[in-house]
């Protein structure tokens, strides 16, 4: 009789164990620990507490030189943010579809000095230290018929700060790009994806498309890149380089427009294996972002699509003539739906779409969507920019423009979101690329949007409460100087906040290597835990709130 209980005990233990290990990475048995030097700089505590964001117009606009915007000028351009000159302030780089790109040098107190960069017709931009010299370089993708261009940061002593140089071996057309150490050799690799429909619009022949379009992985080796074409079909609007199978190695996720399904490759040993881990995806996936929205230590993945947030009859009438044209053929097992999708990790190593349940399924004709703890309460909020301008689609609307309000959502906890118009982020200026970063060094995230046919906007964060911790990693002597791909966990009380260092995400945009944590008022910070890209761990004990930590390995 006494033996009969053991099967039940075994099942119970198995269930409990299954639950416990369900949503975390496979931890290494032994952690190698490496010491780090930490420089702490106190952040100014903002005196401005308006309880909302304050809009500033920036000295940059794209699309204003085009008399009539049609597809695919309508897709606009991105921007990037990082400290390019080492003065401690985050600078901005804007791509432009109809003019030269521009750097807006941050001179403090949200004053910016504009400098044109002589590269034209750009789409996306990333600020990455391509050559591992400790200075962040610029890489642009271009409208139509050009491979990415590389602008090397020559440092403070050079006569010209940025000098265009070839990216040896990078020759395919690119619309979207992503940067990460994909091969584990320490150097940053590049993934590009073309937007074939635009290439066709530009009259590219099938032969040229076969030779220079598609998704390509460029492995950085020595002074150049070795191309590994992954797929010829691509309508890439965004590329996410993120670990999708929880093996600590970044995988490749290409977000495609139209009926072409998103393409995913997982790193397996020394090769790449095509995969489809999602039961549901966005249809015309416009951007990819990820974040630990419920502080469980796992990333939820968010993609945007076209879906009206406002189902009033007035708004639907504006959408209908276009929506009816957008319906495209479907195939068996097609996982695509024309909605935003939030992939949340499940206990069986899979993913489940919870965008509908969490209230973020529809944000309009959406472009960039990004997570960030905007109110410093320890929970990642969400901001999505939207709107569409295309005379050939919206001729029935004034100026061919679908005017929509950008959508801000406050995370209420456990990843449940609610619209928060009180933050006054509901601009109607047709945003495309977007970044979040602490531009005024006051410990909270500001937002910058590259609009189409309107000035770029900076939304200064004047929300009240909480504090911030900003972390920047340095790994001198390594080609991945800014530790792209590192994961940082901050223990505060009984909560752990997890972030990662990345070069690119969202839509056509480059992220700051500075990682922001929002800290609720009264939280005691216990420990900062850094998992470097090579798997080695570092600890920083009791970091102070409202500081910027420069952690050097």
């Amino acid at each position, binding site marked *: 009789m006494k033996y009969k209980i053991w099967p039940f005990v075994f099942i119970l233990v198995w269930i409990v164990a299954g639950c416990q290990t369900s949503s975390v990475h496979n931890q290494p048995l032994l952690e190698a620990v490496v010491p780090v030097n930490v420089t702490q700089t106190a952040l100014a505590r903002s005196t401005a507490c308006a309880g909302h964001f304050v809009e500033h117009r920036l000295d940059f606009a794209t699309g204003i030189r085009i008399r009539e915007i049609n597809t695919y000028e309508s897709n606009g351009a991105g921007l990037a943010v990082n400290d390019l000159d080492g003065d401690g302030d985050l600078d901005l780089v804007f791509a432009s579809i109809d003019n030269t790109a521009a750097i807006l040098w941050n001179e403090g107190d949200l004053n910016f000095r504009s400098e044109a960069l002589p590269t034209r017709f750009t789409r996306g931009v990333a600020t990455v230290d391509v050559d591992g010299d400790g200075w962040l370089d610029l890489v642009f993708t271009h409208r139509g018929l050009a491979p990415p261009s590389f602008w090397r940061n020559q440092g403070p002593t050079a006569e010209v700060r940025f000098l265009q140089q070839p990216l040896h071996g990078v020759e395919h057309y690119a619309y979207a790009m992503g940067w990460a150490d994909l091969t584990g050799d320490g150097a940053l690799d590049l993934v590009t994806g073309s937007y074939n429909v635009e290439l066709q619009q530009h009259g590219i022949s099938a032969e040229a498309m076969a030779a220079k379009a598609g998704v390509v992985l460029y492995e950085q080796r020595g002074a150049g890149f070795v191309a590994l074409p992954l797929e010829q079909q691509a309508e890439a609007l965004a590329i996410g380089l993120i670990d999708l199978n929880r093996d600590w190695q970044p995988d490749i996720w290409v977000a495609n427009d139209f009926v072409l399904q998103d393409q995913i490759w997982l790193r397996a040993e020394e090769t790449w294996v095509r995969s489809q881990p999602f039961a549901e995806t966005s249809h015309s996936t416009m951007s990819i972002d990820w974040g630990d929205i419920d502080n469980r230590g796992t990333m939820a993945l968010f993609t945007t699509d076209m*879906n*009206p947030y406002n*189902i009033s*009859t*007035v708004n*639907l*009438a*504006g959408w*209908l*003539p276009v929506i*009816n044209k957008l*319906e*495209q*053929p*479907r*195939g*068996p097992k*097609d996982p695509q*739906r024309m*909605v935003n999708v939030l992939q949340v990790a499940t206990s069986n190593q899979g993913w489940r779409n919870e965008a*509908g*349940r*969490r*209230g973020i*399924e*529809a944000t309009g004709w959406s472009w960039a969507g990004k997570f960030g703890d905007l109110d410093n309460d320890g929970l990642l909020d969400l901001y999505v920019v939207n709107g569409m301008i295309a005379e050939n689609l919206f001729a*029935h*609307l004034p100026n061919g423009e679908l005017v929509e309000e950008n959508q801000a959502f406050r995370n*209420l906890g456990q990843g*449940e979101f*609610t619209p928060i118009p009180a933050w006054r982020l509901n601009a109607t200026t047709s945003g495309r690329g977007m970044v979040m970063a602490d531009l005024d060094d006051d410990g909270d995230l500001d937002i910058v949007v590259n609009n189409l046919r309107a000035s770029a906007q900076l939304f200064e964060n004047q929300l009240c409460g909480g504090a911030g911790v900003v972390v920047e990693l340095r790994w001198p002597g390594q080609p991945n100087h800014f530790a792209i791909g590192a994961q940082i966990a901050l223990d505060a009380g009984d909560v752990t906040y997890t972030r990662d260092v990345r070069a690119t995400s969202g839509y056509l945009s480059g992220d700051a290597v500075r990682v922001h944590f929002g800290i609720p008022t009264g939280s005691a910070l216990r420990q900062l835990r850094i998992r470097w890209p090579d798997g080695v761990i570092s600890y920083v004990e009791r970091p102070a709130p409202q500081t910027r930590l420069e952690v050097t390995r």
Partner: protein
Amino acid sequence: MNQSLPLPMTGVAWQRIFPLLALLHPRRQAWPLLISLIVGLILGWAAMQFWGMKLWVGTAIVLVALLPALSVKFYHDWLHYGSKTIVILSILLTAQGAHTIEHIVQWVQYHILFWTARQSSGLLSPANAEWVHFVWNWSVLILVIVLMRGGLRNGWAYLLLGVALLHTFEHTYAFIRYQQVLGELRELGVTNVTAQGLPGILGRDGWLARSIWTRGTIICSVPGLTTATRLDVHFWWNVIEMALLTAAGHVYLLTWARRQPQENSVGG
């Protein structure tokens, strides 16, 4: 009464167990109906094949061909049962059954053939779905009320009434919004765009899915309630309604049949 037609209680066993089958059985009209169907199919096929007519024309030809034989069949139902309620039940079962078949065809077009939602419009595609369903569901609701007033009152019937009310409410909501969107489109100078097929209350992008009151609640976790396509939502509305109508009719006919000999004997 036509003495050559057996009353339900004097029929074979399956007719006593499933009186609905006896009701729906074409009886003397079996051959006329079959011939009408064959003629209709041939004519419909020929219209599509040789005159390039569309699927809905072919379907309409079949329905028109069936109409005389069906009318005679319903007349015979009246002669056979002598009850208006049962004749109405017979008509409603036939019509709602055909309507459900239309929804099943749509479901097959969408889920099996992978047509787009707009292409998956069943066999009578050009009919204005909003008008058709608005009129149809109000008609069904009225007929259900008439049936209940005529004596068809049992648990299934009350459930049917509830579902028919909700279904009609959903279509009324959709119809009003359809008219409003058409008005907005006219304001924009757009006249060549259909506004049919917009979400209603249930399903993806419907009122329930977008309501601030339901966000994050268990309602959004109920499979399909806020995520199903309109096509799926109305497939299930009709399947459920048809099932309830069948159950209500079955119970009613059993009761009615049990009463008949006693009433006959009393009357006799």
